[in-house]
């Protein structure tokens, strides 16, 4: 039998544990720094346009747009963010991090005020309280005479988005529950049909839908757009809700029913609370989807009293683009704000939606 001997041991008999630990720590923080740098880099093309929009809305006056404000602001903010991220990856204590963060914020604010403070103004937001802004800028609006108040468009958008949300939540949760729990003839075909409908480009139907709306007398009404949007969006949300219901164990419903609940009570008291995350996610998506809708409202809504926010923005841009970028940017900021707030507050629910969806 041959004996195997190593000429040289692969690892020392007494490794230097401290050096190894230090190396692991270094590697960990290097990895984190690399990740942070990567995230910063990829977020630039997303954040920069929004930031520019905000800067234009706060600084531009009738006429051209100068980019020097943007670059000045970036010259202050980018180093501040970079310094903070370096501090964040190097300094372990959360207290110290906070202090540095606040300090950097104060410095950045002071610099911003000093450099571009005199150029900030809120004139571009005057559309919020004045109706005939377009005429003030360039004599006559192209869109159906007098420009309406932005609040009418805002209200219309709100009505559309809220009712859309209510319809989708109600139908998607009931349908999703039924598909998840009951066996019925053609269930598989129905599920496949939902997927096909979801994948189908609804835009191709825009002319038939226009004609149908015209015949049933719902053309140029918010209700008409609402029905069309809900129909097109529903298959996807039914599918998502089915996924969430699939994840609720059958045992729980069974327990509720032996505890004395009817099926409906079991659904309402026990099952529904467990898919609340899904409901919130679906609600947020449905709301934002209706809020941002453009093609269908552009086609089906004509009179300016029926404008929604996207149409308002379109007509403002159509009329004053090239003349007054500031006001277009200000309307854009106003338009994007509700979606942004919803996203910020419901972020943690939205990320869970994909999980529920994949399960389905």
């Amino acid at each position: 039998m041959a004996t195997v001997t190593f000429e040289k041991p692969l690892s020392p008999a007494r490794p230097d544990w401290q050096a190894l630990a230090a190396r692991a720590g270094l590697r960990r923080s290097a990895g984190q720094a690399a990740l942070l740098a990567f995230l910063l880099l990829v977020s630039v093309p997303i954040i920069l346009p929004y930031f520019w929009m905000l800067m234009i809305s706060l600084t531009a006056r009738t006429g051209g747009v100068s980019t020097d404000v943007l670059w000045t602001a970036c010259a202050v903010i980018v180093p501040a963010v970079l310094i903070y991220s370096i501090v964040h990856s190097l300094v372990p204590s959360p207290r110290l991090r906070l202090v540095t963060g606040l300090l950097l914020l104060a410095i950045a604010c002071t610099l911003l005020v000093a450099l571009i403070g005199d150029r900030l103004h809120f004139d571009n937001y005057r559309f919020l309280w004045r109706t005939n802004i377009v005429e003030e800028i360039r004599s006559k609006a192209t869109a159906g005479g007098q420009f309406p108040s932005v609040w009418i468009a805002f209200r219309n958008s709100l009505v559309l988005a809220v009712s859309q949300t209510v319809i989708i939540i109600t139908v998607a949760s009931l349908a999703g529950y039924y598909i998840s729990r009951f066996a019925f003839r053609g269930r598989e075909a129905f599920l496949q049909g939902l997927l096909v409908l979801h994948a189908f480009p609804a835009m191709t139907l825009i002319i038939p839908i226009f004609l149908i709306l015209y015949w049933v007398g719902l053309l140029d009404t918010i209700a008409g757009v609402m029905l069309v949007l809900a129909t097109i969006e529903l298959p996807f949300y039914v599918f998502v809700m089915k996924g969430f219901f699939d994840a609720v164990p059958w045992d729980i419903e069974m327990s509720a029913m032996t505890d004395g609940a009817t099926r409906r009570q079991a659904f309402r008291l026990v099952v529904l609370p467990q898919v609340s995350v899904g409901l919130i996610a679906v609600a947020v998506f449905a709301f934002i989807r209706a809020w941002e809708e453009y093609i269908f409202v552009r086609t089906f809504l004509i009179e300016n009293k029926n404008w929604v926010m996207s149409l308002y923005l379109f007509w403002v841009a159509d009329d004053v683009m090239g003349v007054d970028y500031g006001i277009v940017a200000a309307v854009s900021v106003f338009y994007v704000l509700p979606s942004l707030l919803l996203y910020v507050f419901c972020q943690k629910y939205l990320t869970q939606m994909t999980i529920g969806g994949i399960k389905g």
Partner: protein
Amino acid sequence: MSRIELRNLRKDWATAAAVADVNLTIEDGAFVAVLGPSGCGKTTTLLMLAGIYNPTTGDIAFDGARVNDVEARDRNVGIVCQSYALYPNMSVLENIMFPLRFKKVERAESKRRAREIAALVRIDALLDRRPSQLSGGQQQRVALARALVKRPHLLLLDEPLSNLDAALRLTMRTEIRRIQRELGVTTVLVTHDQIEATTMADRIIVMNAGRVEQEGTAKDLYERPRTLFVASFIGSPPINLLDGEAEDGLVKVHQTTIAVAAPARGAVVLGIRPEQLHVDETGTPARVVAVEPMGREVLYTTDSALGIVRFIEAGSEAHHREGDSVALRFSPEDAVLFDKTSGLRIDARIAA
């Protein structure tokens, strides 16, 4: 508290019968275990009792009255599922109060009752917590309290201990037994664990492939199994089952011939429990091939004139090693003989 009867109960699924020809009577206040391997139809039977499934044919009667068409929520049955199925959106107290919601019990009264039952199952300190903040054993107790709070006619336990660790299982076994005795509620326990069944229940129903194999006390099942399946399913370590050929009062097993006083013919199976084999100079020669210490006892596997046979010795006396030669003997009245084709026990004593 009710007397439960199942008459010719049958449940068919699309492809096969899950439960067939089940006839049972469960006396008022009894603790009965339905024992069987997974897929034997025991949970289907339980869910038919609860009213979740409707039997295809046959009747279920509570206190002599047919309840087939009574809905689950009106049967006044409490159920504890394997997963406990607590409502995660409610506190422990709300969970326990949930069944009383549908009984038109006043809130103050239902709170009082929930507290009372919580004290009985010893979770009165946890009432404000959420189910997710409880350990497995505590969740188990909450599920039990919720099932019991409405004073059910029948308590159903579906594998209630299988999600607990070994030590907790031991305590919960005693706890469930204590609570059942205190309330005197008729209880059906469904389990695949024979220890659970034998330690908790008064009577055990062994099911296999949708049918009842045998009903009786733990002692009956162990000592006088009606079928080959019951003999092999009950007992740990398992019974030695030795194939043999019977003719003219003699059974030939491997190289040994045993005289029997039974009219057995053809293929038979001889069953001897490992603890019924003793080392005795005059016995069948055997060679130890494996030694497995199990704490109090030692399990030996031997290659003998009877075939591969296992026997147990108390740890204090056990001193055989692998390769040792021993001689094994068993008292004829301990062994059981089965007809191999029908699987039924041949009701006879072995003569020598």
